Structures are given as C-alpha cells and as structure tokens.
C-alpha cells in the first residue's frame, strides 16, 4: 500500500470549481485559475502553505465572498451566495457568547423559522452526538476550546446540509483534544455520508482525515497536486498513524510542499 498521486477525476463531483480566480481590492492575487472537483460523500482536504488562499477558496465555495473570475457549482447549481446545502464550521468557532449551547446549535434552524420545540429536539440530538450531553444550558465561555468547536460542528450538522465546509476547525484546539476530536469527527461523519471540504495547514491532519487531498501552491494559488491516501478507514486510529501508507503519504506531501518554503 503506497500513496498514489492521481489526476483530479471525481467519482461523482458534488462541488465543481472551474477556472476560479480571486484578486482582492488592492491587487493581492489570492487564487489563480483554480479548478477542482470534490467527490460526494468523501472528505476532501485543501492543504497548502500558510497564506496560500485555502480559506479564500473555501469562503468562495460557501458563498461568503465573491470570486473575480470563474464559477463554483454545488450539486450542479451555480453558487451566488450562502445556501442551505452548505454548512460552515469556523476556525474561531463563531459562537454567540450570549446564547446557550442549545440555542447556538439550534441557531441555523431558528433562522429558518423552525418551531422552538422541534429545533431544540434536533439540537439536543446533535449535542449528544458530538459528546456534549449535559452541557445544553452552558454558555460558550464556560467551555474549553475543543468543546466550543464541538458546538460549532453540532450546529453545522443540525441544519442537515449536504456539504460541510470546515475552515481549520482544529487549529485553535490543543493537541491532545485535537486527536480525540478528529477520531470522533470521522466516526460521526462516516455514518452520515456527508461531503466534507476541510481546510488545514497540518499535513498529518490532512493525511489522517482525508479521502482526497488537494495540494495548493503558494499564492496566487493553483492546484499543485491531488493525492488520494490509500488508507483503510475503520482501523484502530492509533494503528493508522503508524501505518506505512500514512507515513509515506505524509512524507510525499512534505517533499511536495517543501519547495514552497524558503
């Protein structure tokens, strides 16, 4: 079992990005002609050197910022703004500090006009699934960083979007918590068939989590390489981290990224 570099052919693409460019006001070119497909029901990671425009790409797909050129389609529909088919998980959690965990998780449904009883029942179920049962009536400042991000994940799951867009969700979470959280997230997602697009700057995290890794070059970013780590899921998580295929893939990516550092 070795890591193989494959061309970017999707099984069934749910997100299609075509010739996307983004130049910020003031002339900073973040993305330059990026094209990629994200396969349905898989976890795809955007990986690249820091400041390479990964988050910009993710936010364009989320409909939060407009692109300069090119197009994004989700399930065949052109993205012109945020939509209920996509749910976002934020790097800094973006929880409402004045609201309880329950209200935070139910917030997406509250905005859609779902009745209180119904949305709180859904929220309670997701709070339990991310392992925060009993914390429904706490406020974010009473929780640790890892627990806050679990709330952010529960909120994204509660709206039942097809696509989860995650912007470095574990970067503000300490190392031990992160590992446990990664394992929990994989088992949560494997049962649901969600498509996940995940931004990270950690090679280990990308290889551990992903079905497909999209390597971006330095700014203005292009797709440098698409890698599909050949690692069997469902194994003992500790075994994965010692698996030769895991270690080989990490090494391959590191060799690929090294040329962008100087």
């Amino acid at each position, binding site marked *: 079992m070795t890591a193989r570099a494959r061309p970017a052919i999707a099984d069934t693409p749910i997100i299609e990005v075509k010739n996307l460019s983004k130049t910020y006001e003031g002339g900073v070119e973040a993305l330059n002609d990026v094209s990629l497909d994200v396969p349905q029901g898989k976890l795809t990671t955007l990986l690249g050197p820091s400041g390479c425009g990964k988050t910009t790409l993710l936010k364009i797909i*989320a409909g939060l910022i407009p692109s300069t050129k090119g197009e994004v389609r989700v399930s065949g529909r052109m993205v012109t703004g*945020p939509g209920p088919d996509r749910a976002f998980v934020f790097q*800094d959690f973006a929880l409402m500090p004045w609201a309880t965990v329950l209200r935070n998780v139910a917030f997406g449904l509250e*905005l859609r006009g779902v009745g209180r009883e119904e949305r709180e029942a859904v929220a309670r179920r997701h709070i339990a699934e991310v392992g925060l049962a009993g914390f429904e009536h706490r*406020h974010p*400042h009473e929780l640790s960083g890892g627990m806050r991000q679990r709330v952010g994940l529960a909120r994204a799951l509660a*709206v039942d979007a097809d696509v989860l867009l995650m912007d470095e969700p574990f970067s503000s979470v300490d190392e031990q918590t992160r590992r446990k959280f990664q394992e929990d997230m994989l088992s949560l997602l494997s049962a649901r068939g969600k498509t996940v697009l995940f931004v990270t700057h950690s090679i280990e995290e990308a290889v551990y989590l992903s079905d497909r890794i999209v390597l971006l070059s330095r700014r203005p970013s292009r797709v440098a390489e698409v890698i599909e780590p050949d690692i069997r899921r469902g194994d003992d998580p500790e075994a994965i981290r010692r698996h030769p295929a895991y270690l080989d893939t990490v090494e391959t990516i590191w060799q690929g990224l090294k040329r962008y550092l100087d």
Partner: protein
Amino acid sequence: MKLFGYHVPMMTSLILWIALWEILGQSGAALVLPPFSAVVERVFEIVPTPTYLKALAITAEAYLLGNLIAIVVGVPVGVLMGRSVIADRLLLPWVNIFLSAPLSALVPVIMVLFGLGMTTIVLTVVLFAVWIIVLDARAGARGISPSLVEMARSYGATPWQAFSKIYLWAALPEILAGIRLGCIRAVKGVIIGQLLVSIVGFGHLFEIYSSNFLMEHFWALVVTLFIFAFAIAEGLGYLERRVEYYAASRN
C-alpha cells in the same frame, strides 16, 4: 482615602463642603446663598406640595418618553452606521457635529417649530440623548467579530435577523454604555428645555422662585434635582456593571 493613618469615608469631604456652605449662609455674606439647614428644611416643605409633584410627574414623563425615542431611533441608526459604509459616510459628520454642538442654542428653534409645550421638551431630551447613543451603538457594531457576521450570513440570516439576533446582542455592552451616557445627557435636556419654555414643570417652578427671590426654595429645588440626576447615573452604572462580565466573555 487615608488621612494621618485613619480611614476616612468618601462622603466625609461632602460633609466638609456642606459645613462650609452652612457657615457662609449663616454669616449672610452672600445674598443668594441661604444656609444649608434652611434649604434642607425647604426640601421637606416643597417636595410634598401638589405643584412640585405635578412638575415631577411632567418632567419624568418628558424624560422617559424622550429617552425612549432616543433609544428606539439611536440604536438602529448606530448599528446601521457600524455595519454599512454608505450610511456611515452619510451620517457620521452630522453625529459628530451634534455631539459637540451647544445644543441649548437649538432649543429656541424647536420652540418656534413645536410651541411652548410638552413636544418641545420631549424633543429637547431626544436632542441631548440621541447622539451619544448613536455613536456608541456604532462603535459596538463595528467591533462585532467578522466571523460572527459571516456565521449569520452562511446560515442564511436575513438582514433583519442579523440585526435583531446578532448585531444587537454582540454590540450590547457598547449600546448600554451609550444609553447610560444618553440618559445622563437627557437630564440636562429635560431641565434646559423646561427652563427655556419656563411655563411647564420645574422650569415653571424655577421661574416663580427666582422672580420672587425665594432663594431657599430655589436651592431646595436645585438640591432635589441634583439628587435625582445622581441617582439616575448611579443606577444606570450599576446596571451596566452587571452586564460587564458578558463584555469580557466575548471572543
């Protein structure tokens, strides 16, 4: 405060100044300054009279109504300015001008437009209170974490939902600080309005006392108004401190 190694309570200095006032008053050195003890006696005399209570009721009504209007108008305008560059460019110069302008000079204009009545006094209160409320709400809305704004958008919030469910709450500590400062300025507004109109409420009483040279009554009225203003400021400060924990926990 410590003096010669003894702990001296804060109010001690107040007692010292009151004693000085009493001595000056008793000596008869200043014609307009009756002794403090006589003023205190007058306070108990005039406060229960129907004239005083009616003036108090009218003042309270104008004060509360004016503040309510200032808050209902000022907070949304301030939040809008904080979130929209166009609104901010359009309105900020005016807000800054009115914030520092000698507003008493505008009261006669209001008087000409709206007559010598309640409307003029309520509008004077609004005029004094609203600008600082706008400015603080604006500051609060500008400080809202960008990811919270993106969160609202990505989960499909309408502009009204974003305002009522996110912006208002995220900016709440600044909004409350603005309201407190606005309420303190409104005290000036309501008294200045009444003094200039001078046929309603305390303005009318001041007019009667000063034109008849009833200095003890005059000072008694001043003392009660000072106490009210101080109590309002302290009460609002207490309320604001209670939500401070929340400002600190914002991320």
